[in-house]
């Protein structure tokens, strides 16, 4: 007979619970879990904690009344989606019994287990979930700071930035040049810049066909590259030009007033619309909580997404170091469910269930042209591993019907994950 470590520990935990079953259950029910951030990771964590623990007090802190999703914001830029269709409110989470506070978490004291809100409220927690998304490394590209972003948008957090970029595209003359500077390293949504280029190309082909798109990349290759380039050639001819790192694609300085981008080898590109996807790090509140390391991101235990540095804090989503999982909304949602299950089990005195994750990033290349990349992941001890032989990208030789089906399934994904997170909100 094989007795697993889990089995023995499970027995011991169960015996512990048996000694004081009422007490453990009362602890779980009386616990207060605070969630900071009402985006893909945070709103998922709140909803799944509520489902798993009907009596528990769960408080979600999110400054915005309606959350605008980065996913499908490129379709909005392309003219394929209305703004309202990519925003979600919190009424459905409230109806489910989550206390939603529209405020900003200003400080976190991990030792006292306390969150201080900008409005002055102080919340004590038994467990904290952080899903603050990303912040930008201002001035990592010379001249690109918060003020510059008001002239030259990043649109890498959806909201007014996305609407600014859209209005600039609409104001551009036919024959204009759209330039995008793309970061290397760890960043939100690896295929995102190339889907954006596709959707801008769709918009320009429809409305301003003499225009051009120049992609200045700090990388040698990119996500789903062969699939994107195949689609671009088929749908947009040579409207999109991609310049790799080796071909002097790396932008080192931005002059926002003149809309110019200067590269590493000293070439200056003047744009009619300039879009910068800048270097990134974890949302600043993670640093306040003491959970970030020297990389600016958050190391976590893969089995539970608990911080490696501060107990009782779980961090999910883009802020974490979760490679080989990419920084995607799909992953944030999957990680939040694992964290919610781990927290629930721990508060009830049970074993942490074995973690299991998946990811799929759909990208829309054209109206009826969708592509995807998928992966399946598990936790081994506390590191995350990709299941070998699973996942991968859409076949390069797929026919038009396959691409069309993936475009439709991409929209299906957006509807499904939105319902899973914000409900009808």
């Amino acid at each position, binding site marked *: 007979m094989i007795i697993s470590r889990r089995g023995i520990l499970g027995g011991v935990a169960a015996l512990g*619970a048996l000694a004081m079953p009422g007490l453990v259950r009362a602890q779980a029910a009386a616990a207060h879990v605070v969630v900071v951030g009402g985006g893909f990771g945070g709103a998922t964590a709140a909803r799944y904690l509520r489902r798993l623990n009907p009596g528990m007090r769960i408080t979600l802190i999110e400054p915005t009344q309606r959350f605008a999703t980065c996913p499908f914001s490129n379709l909005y830029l392309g003219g394929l989606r209305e703004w309202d269709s990519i925003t979600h409110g919190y009424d459905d989470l409230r109806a489910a019994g989550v206390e939603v506070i529209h405020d900003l978490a200003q400080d976190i004291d991990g030792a006292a287990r306390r969150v201080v809100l900008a409005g002055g409220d102080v919340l004590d927690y038994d467990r904290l979930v952080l899903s603050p998304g990303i912040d930008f490394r201002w001035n990592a590209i010379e001249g690109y700071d918060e003020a510059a972003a008001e002239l030259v948008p990043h649109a890498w957090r959806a909201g007014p930035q996305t609407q600014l970029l859209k209005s600039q595209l609409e104001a551009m003359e036919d024959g204009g040049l759209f330039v995008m500077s793309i970061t290397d390293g760890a960043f939100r949504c690896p295929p995102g810049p190339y889907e954006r280029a596709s959707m801008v190309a769709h918009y320009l082909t429809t409305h301003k066909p003499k225009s051009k798109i120049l992609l200045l990349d700090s990388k040698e290759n990119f996500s789903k590259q062969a699939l994107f380039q195949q689609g671009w050639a088929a749908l947009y001819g040579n409207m999109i030009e991609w310049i790799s790192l080796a071909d002097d694609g790396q932008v080192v300085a931005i002059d926002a007033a003149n809309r110019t981008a200067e590269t590493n080898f000293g070439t200056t590109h003047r744009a009619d619309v300039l879009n910068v996807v800048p270097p990134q790090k974890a949302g600043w509140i993670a640093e306040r909580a003491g959970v970030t390391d020297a990389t600016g991101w958050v190391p976590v235990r893969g089995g539970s997404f608990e911080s490696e540095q501060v107990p009782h804090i779980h961090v999910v989503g883009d802020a974490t170091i979760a490679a080989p999982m990419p920084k995607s909304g799909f992953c944030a949602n999957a990680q939040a469910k694992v964290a919610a299950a781990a927290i629930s089990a721990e508060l009830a005195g049970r074993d942490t269930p074995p973690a299991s*994750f*998946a990811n799929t990033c759909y990208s829309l290349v054209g109206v009826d042209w969708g592509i*995807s990349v998928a992966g399946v992941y598990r936790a081994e001890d506390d590191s995350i591993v990709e299941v070998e032989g699973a996942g991968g990208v859409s076949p390069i030789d797929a026919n038009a019907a396959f691409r069309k089906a*993936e475009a439709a399934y991409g929209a299906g994904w957006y509807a*499904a994950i939105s319902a899973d997170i914000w409900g009808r909100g």
Partner: protein
Amino acid sequence: MSVRQLNLMVLPMMLTATLASAAAADERAAAQVLAGPCAGCHGPDGHSPGAIPSIAGLPEAELLARMTGFRDGTADATVMTRLMKGYDEAQIATLAHWFAEVGQ
């Protein structure tokens, strides 16, 4: 039978029952985690609001057959063939059971 004797009989029974229900709770939690990412595409508990098929409440045997077909490459699909290669037979059985029950 004295109260003490009764206790001696009932306590081990309670212990066994609690251990069994603890094991069942662990199994349930594990199945729920395994099924977590499916909702990202198939909707909450497999109830799809969009273009991807709903899987909630389908007959267990049908779910098992569909998923096994995806994994073995005998069924045509856009993405399920890639995803199902990440699940072994036992996991697929757990998922089939989960989605058959959850929709009812």
